[in-house]
């Protein structure tokens, strides 16, 4: 199948998130924004500027932000709290576990600056562990949109349609914005972006565009590649994973996250239990990131289309 996706122009997924929050807030007056000092940096400025009376600034106190969000949600509000993912997901894990997830309240937590594409800020600010930590918490939905358009759509759905806790991760760097405003998308269901039968690439977040580029390269080598965007990491689309394993017999996973416990692990868990096939993972190799330009870092750690092509060729040898 011909790849029909074209880049409409680079745009940060954080911008899509911010637009999604604003759009949802326009439809539901119970949407409350919570800020932890870096409001513009995480895309929440659109909401704050339009609805200042519904924006609660709590300062650099992320644990309190999560607890306050739980209290608001228990009182009928729909709070959206976003800051860098290293803080919103990792510093606050206990608050998310008990005050949000154990209470099963509808709090939407945004994890900004996810992945190594954060770039020059370096390792402290590059969230590479958040998927692993968030996806083991009961009751939570974990979302990872592939571009700004999808980030906007998923953010709106997360706020307006879902009920329990939600974690949504997104990046800082402008990346290709290639999905349609009118795309068919359902939380919990993978998106088939390209058909193929020799192997399947499952990608999430920024790596989806890279997977499509990798597929083009592989097709030129005569390899038929299926590409699936899993924007929902939890609940994971088991059916689509099992079908892909049955029909293509080899899997490559791609994420901007540590190799242990994350997106690739989630897929491997499904495969190991239902239909084991060879798997190769494109992910951070159990090490911290570092400063550098995003593209340099993606190159160094093989978190790009070339890395996906390498792993694809490798997995085919194991078939």
């Amino acid at each position, binding site marked *: 199948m011909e790849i029909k996706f074209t880049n409409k122009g680079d745009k940060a997924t954080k911008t899509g998130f911010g637009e999604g929050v604003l759009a949802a807030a326009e439809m539901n007056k119970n949407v409350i924004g919570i800020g932890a000092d870096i409001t513009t940096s995480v895309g929440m400025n659109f909401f704050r500027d339009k609805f200042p009376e519904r924006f609660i600034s709590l*300062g650099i106190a992320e644990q*309190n932000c999560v607890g306050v969000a739980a209290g*608001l949600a228990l*009182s009928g509000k729909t709070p959206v709290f976003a800051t860098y993912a290293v803080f919103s997901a990792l510093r606050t894990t206990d608050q998310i576990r*008990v*005050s949000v997830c154990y209470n099963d309240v509808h709090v939407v937590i945004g994890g900004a600056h996810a992945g190594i594409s954060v770039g020059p800020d370096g390792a402290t600010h590059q969230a590479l562990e958040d998927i692993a930590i968030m996806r083991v918490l009961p009751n939570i939905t974990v979302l990872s949109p592939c571009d700004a358009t999808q980030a906007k759509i998923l953010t709106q759905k997360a706020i307006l349609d879902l009920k329990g806790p939600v974690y949504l991760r997104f990046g800082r760097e402008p990346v290709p914005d290639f999905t349609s405003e009118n795309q068919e998308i359902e939380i919990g269901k993978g998106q088939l972006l390209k058909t193929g039968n020799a192997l399947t690439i499952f990608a999430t977040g920024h790596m989806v565009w890279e997977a499509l580029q990798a597929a083009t390269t592989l097709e030129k080598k005569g390899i038929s590649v299926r590409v699936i965007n899993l924007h929902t990491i939890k609940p994971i689309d088991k059916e689509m994973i099992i079908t892909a394993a049955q029909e293509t017999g080899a899997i490559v996973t791609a994420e901007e996250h540590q190799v242990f416990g994350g997106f690739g692990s989630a897929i491997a868990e499904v495969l190991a239990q239902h239909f084991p096939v060879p798997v190769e993972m494109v992910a951070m190799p159990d090490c911290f990131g570092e400063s550098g330009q995003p593209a340099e870092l993606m190159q160094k750690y093989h978190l790009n289309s070339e890395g996906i092509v390498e792993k694809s060729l490798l997995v085919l040898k194991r078939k």
Partner: protein
Amino acid sequence: MLSVWILYFSNVKKTDQMFEKITQPGELSEMAREIRKDIVKSLAVAGSGHTGGALGLADVFTVLYFNRMNHRPEDPEWPERDRLILSIGHVAPVLYTTLAHAGYFQVNELTTLRKLGSRLQGHPGRDHHLPGLELSAGSLGQGLSVAVGMALAAKLDQHSWKVFSVHGDGELQEGAIWEAAMSAAHYKLDNLIAIIDRNHVQIDGPTSHVMEINPLAEKWKAFGWEVFECDGNNISELIATFKNAENVVGKPSVIIARTLMGKGVRSIEGDYRWHGKAPGTAEAEEFIRQLEEN
């Protein structure tokens, strides 16, 4: 043994009439005594749990649920109700026993504390759908933030209901408490009243040895709160202090309630070793005897 204790519970006067506030301090003291006796019984049946703190807080809970708070046991989700946030989930037996006596559920259910399938989880869990339970909690330092969120929600919608949150003194060692304290004052949450169970002890021993939290009143003042101190085991003092706190305008209030761990059971009063254990059957009978004498 279990059947003996169930019998004990069935002897307790059942509150199936409409809930009414109690105004007489003497009647409130009697209610606190009954609550203490049922705390001891339920912990003895459970075989584990936190006795000392639950007994120490019985007067605070009695005053809140039977005198100060606006709530409807027959309509637990009544939107206008005052909220009680128990941040120190480990003293759940005092909350459960008070809720039962207020009429949220049958007193007999207290025999299921900490048992498989019970709505009375070791630390409160809303996933078990206990009427009147506002928050799943047990990880210390989180409840004040939730209380701030609720108080903010009430302010946003211009509701008049209040939030009461109950904390341990050892819990104040958690940094997140002070993040929450800062935010409550910043947003002038005069619909929030925090209660500190100031019993001067925690699991490892005296709070002053484990990690000093004094000067406590000065800390809260510095964080922008109106501070009250009172004897947390004196019904009349508690009522008067709550009334004063409820009248504060423009800032949150904290009540540092001086309590005795194990209050009412003279042989264990003030003994930090009773923070985290439950009485055996013989001990429970002795405790109840002391409570009835008191």
